[in-house]
């Protein structure tokens, strides 16, 4: 898993580099400063979902399957809110501000970078949801804690990437 994370981190690095390289180079509008608003609430959701997975895995390790299920469920909900929020943000950008992936360089780099991250969030959510279904059916036991930990490691990584993207896109990039 560490090696997979290293490979994924390298992919994200390249996209982030491309984003930074092209900041302010768009030939036409809209520019990021005009249309982007820092999604503080969504960021809070995603970051706290890292905490909930951590608590869930800790619960499982101490044989508390109920606690695991609840915290795990919380993670899925928080992640779901994040994805829904991103979808709303994109909808607003496309229909109100007229920014698509074809509009300008900002559109191209923004949608690919945030989209790549959203894709990872969705993939993670699917995996989390599968485990949640297992947990509700009562198939998750203490001996699975190592496996859930691998998944939570992936989830932490996705969150950490979001911190970078948030800094680059919404703070520096504007």
């Amino acid at each position: 898993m560490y090696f997979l994370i290293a490979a994924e981190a390298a992919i994200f690095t390249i996209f982030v580099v491309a984003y930074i390289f092209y900041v302010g180079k768009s030939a036409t509008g809209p520019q990021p400063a005009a249309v982007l608003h820092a999604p503080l609430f969504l960021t809070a959701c995603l970051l706290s979902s890292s905490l909930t997975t951590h608590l869930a895995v800790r619960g499982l390790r101490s044989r508390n399957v109920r606690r695991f299920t609840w915290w795990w469920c919380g993670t899925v909900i928080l992640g779901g809110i994040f994805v829904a929020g991103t979808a709303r943000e994109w909808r607003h950008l496309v229909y109100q501000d007229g920014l698509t992936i074809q509009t300008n360089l900002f559109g191209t780099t923004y949608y690919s970078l945030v989209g790549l991250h959203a894709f990872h969030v969705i993939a993670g959510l699917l995996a989390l949801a599968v485990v949640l279904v297992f947990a509700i059916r009562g198939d998750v036991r203490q001996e699975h804690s190592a496996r859930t930990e691998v998944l939570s490691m992936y989830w932490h990584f996705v969150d950490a990437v979001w911190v970078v993207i948030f800094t680059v896109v919404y703070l520096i990039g504007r």
Partner: protein
Amino acid sequence: MSAARATVAVVRSERAPLVDTLHEWVTTVDHKRLGILYIIYALLFLAFGGIEAIIIRIQLIRPHNTFVSPQVFNRMFTMHGTTMIFFAAMPLVFGFANYLVPLMIGARDTAFPRLNAFSFWLTAFGGLLLYFSFLGGNGLYGAGNAPDVGWFAYAPLTSRTFSPGHSTDFWILALLLSGIGSMGTAINIAATVLCMRCPGMTLGKMPLLAWLNFTMAGLVILSMSPLTAAQLMLLVDRYLGGHFFDVQAGGSAVLWMHFFWIFGHPEVYVLAIPAFAFASEIIPVFSRKPIFGYPVMVAATLAIGFISMSVWAHHMFTVGMTSAGNTFFVLSTMAIAVPTGIKIFNWLATIWGGKVQYRTPMLFCVAFLFQFLIAGLTGIMLAAAPFDWQLSGSYFVVAHFHYVIVGGILFTIFGAFYYWFPKMSGRMYNEALGKVHFWLFTAGFHLTFDFMHVPGVLGMPRRIYTYEPGRGWDIWNLVITIGVLFQAVATLVFLGNLLWSKLWGKVAGSDPWDGWTLEWSTASPPPAYNFPSLPEVRSRRPLWDLKHPEDPDWHYE
């Protein structure tokens, strides 16, 4: 255990029908079978890439030749480069790593056998996709089949405007798929080395081959991903109308060059480090001496891996970077020569004073030492930016990197084939044919690539489909093409030797070379479980300890 063996024997003796055998091979997760699948697949693509090279060389044999059209010529050099790097060299390296690493570290399989199979089939379908472009590359536009954008596919040549049809898309998707496959295999190799070593085998007692392949895996993980990211961006450009590499909308063609070479240079070492690994196993055994300077070899390998991540822009001196940028990349590139030089001296010191046996694997490794040295020297020449401004994009560069890839890497891979063929097939190869292969191939190699430097210095650019007579290039091109003929015949001898020996060669036994590493302690070919009981290791040469209990290595390490 004996009951299990008995059933295995019964199943073997009945000789399963062909369908069952095929089914077994297709669904296998055994690292040895996957290794052999990788190797056979790579040999197939080596033949394809070789045929493309022959077409290129026939076209260039004399000025104003009309053997193929300019369009076909572009497709041939693109397909030749892409095939040889991604679908011949990489699978060869992965095949040997898959086969050998678990055996040499005393493991029963890799860490993730199913990931291993998945990665192989991804790579395999990537290659099929690339070659399907000959049929399906036309797309709706009727323009061009098979990719023709060069193996590094510079922007904006890859944009929709200049590459209509689907040939470039096939190129992107093929590399994307095989790239993901490579990452899977690399993750698997790295995890195997870290987690699956047999009792007693500390990192410091691991065979060099395992160390070097571990470094290679790390490089693949860190360098394949930028390529994957860049391919994704190119797909966004081509299919969603993005502007990453669209100069008219402010995008940058130079950014693609950076992304490609951030992959492209470490890729050389992804191939070269396993080649070093083969040399580091073969040279000691045929010199009857342990490798000289083991810890230094490991350190030099790690240094090469580390430095190779920071030299990529030496492919871009002619782009016009700042002088600070140029200086940095000149110095970092030249710095790589230091650990590489250390390695060459260590191999020489291993041979020095040894009882050298010139069997075919050793011959290939000795030739490798000479040729890799020359390749390194022309590399240092090209690393000097002013020299590169003069010769970048000429046949001198083509000669240089073929010297690295053929003279360095392919030679040790041939050596590895002969050295481990008895282990993989259970039969000895034919020594006389092996020597014929060696001498023919070496003669051909030098005819082609020594003389290729000359038209480069005389100003012949790469990738031209023909040239004017009377520029002093004619005779050199003729000689180069004649050399290719030798190499082609030699390769046929090699393939014939493998095939003949597999069927009728004499039985090799478990340890034909009097080797020292763990793969020689088990049967040839090894059973599915590799080792009846997991070996225990006390030194870097466990089989030496076993054969010489009165003077074991661990007294000295």
